[in-house]
């Protein structure tokens, strides 16, 4: 990893923290403290690519683990991870990595539609795929009920996918950083 990459990784970890603390953008329909951090997951993946984006969000999770209050509402520490919603936090780096991977593959014909696809898969579906079973295990709740309960996240996540994709497309035009990968 080059020095520039180190700075970028730290930058996006910090953007995650800021998104949790100060609602930089207000989302309609979503309770404020819950908001923007998954947006950070999407931005890291779609602006930095798989490796750096995943590392940036992994670094953020590390900040949570070592006891810094970087989750919304000043939460942090190991208790959050072992709690019912901890799986979502652990899924963040995987989500960013998947967003990045898809973005790298589709970089040459990247547009708003592609961005929406990448962010919806990596920034929402992947998080559900890890976070919901985790919740089901920790809470002893049947998986089907955990899935039903998570429907409340859908409207907010849809809005975040749109905002993240708009920003990703604009940043790609002004400041492209992703190294494209040729499709296999």
């Amino acid at each position, binding site marked *: 990893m080059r020095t520039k990459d180190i700075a970028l990784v730290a930058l996006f970890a910090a953007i995650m923290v800021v998104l949790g603390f100060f609602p930089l953008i207000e989302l309609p329909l979503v309770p404020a403290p819950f908001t923007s951090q998954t947006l950070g997951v999407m931005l890291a993946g779609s*602006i930095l690519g798989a490796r750096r984006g995943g590392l940036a969000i992994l670094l953020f999770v590390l900040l949570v683990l070592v006891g810094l209050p970087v989750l919304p509402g000043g939460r942090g520490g190991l*208790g959050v991870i072992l709690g019912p919603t901890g799986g979502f936090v652990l899924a963040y780096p995987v989500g960013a990595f998947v967003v990045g991977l898809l973005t790298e593959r589709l970089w040459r014909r990247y547009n708003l539609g592609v961005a929406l696809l990448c962010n919806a898969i990596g920034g929402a579906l992947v998080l559900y795929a890890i976070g919901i079973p985790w919740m089901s295990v920790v*809470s002893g709740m049947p998986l089907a009920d955990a899935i039903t309960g998570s429907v409340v996240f859908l409207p907010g996540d849809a809005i975040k996918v749109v905002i993240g994709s708009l920003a990703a497309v604009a940043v790609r035009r002004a400041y492209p950083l992703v190294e494209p990968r040729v499709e296999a």
Partner: protein
Amino acid sequence: MLSLYHDADTPVHALPAGAKLLVLFGAGTGLFFVRSIPGLAVALAAVVLCHPVARVPWRTAWRQARPVLPFTALIVAAQVVLTDWATAVLVGERILALVLLANLVTLTTRTSAMIAAVEAALRPLRPLGVRPERVGLLVALTIRFIPVIREQAEQVRAAQRARGVERSSAFLTPLLIKTLRLADGLGEALDARGFEAGERPHRTSR
């Protein structure tokens, strides 16, 4: 930024971070195999009793645990409806015991000790190209970036207000581009100090 660490001189504080984390992960696995209400009650009581030993004030412990409570209550309620009382109590006890124990580790372990434990845990991955000694630098850089991003956000907002733009999507992009430029500049500055040569950058006072 404040850490969640609560300073005191107790045997719990004195335990090495790695040992506390191992206990936590052991308990995290072990508690899932305890399927009796009294058994989990004993575990929960033991965790609660560790708090006075670690001289963690109840108010501090409460502030840490409070965010998890509404969600836990919701889950317990769901269990009562979906299964039976016994399962609901078991699940509630288990979540509380785990969360309180994890919080206790966080409250009694310095952030720097945690980072050192993480670096130690990553050391076996060195052959895969992982550089554990960079973890501390990355954490420090991240914490340094937080006020910088806020400042940039204020600037962008002020500039937009002056032009009468108030859309949030129009706010995120300039903020990202501004901070990306800053990160680039920082990377160059680190390189100029010979960082890439594999040495730690020259320490100066902040």
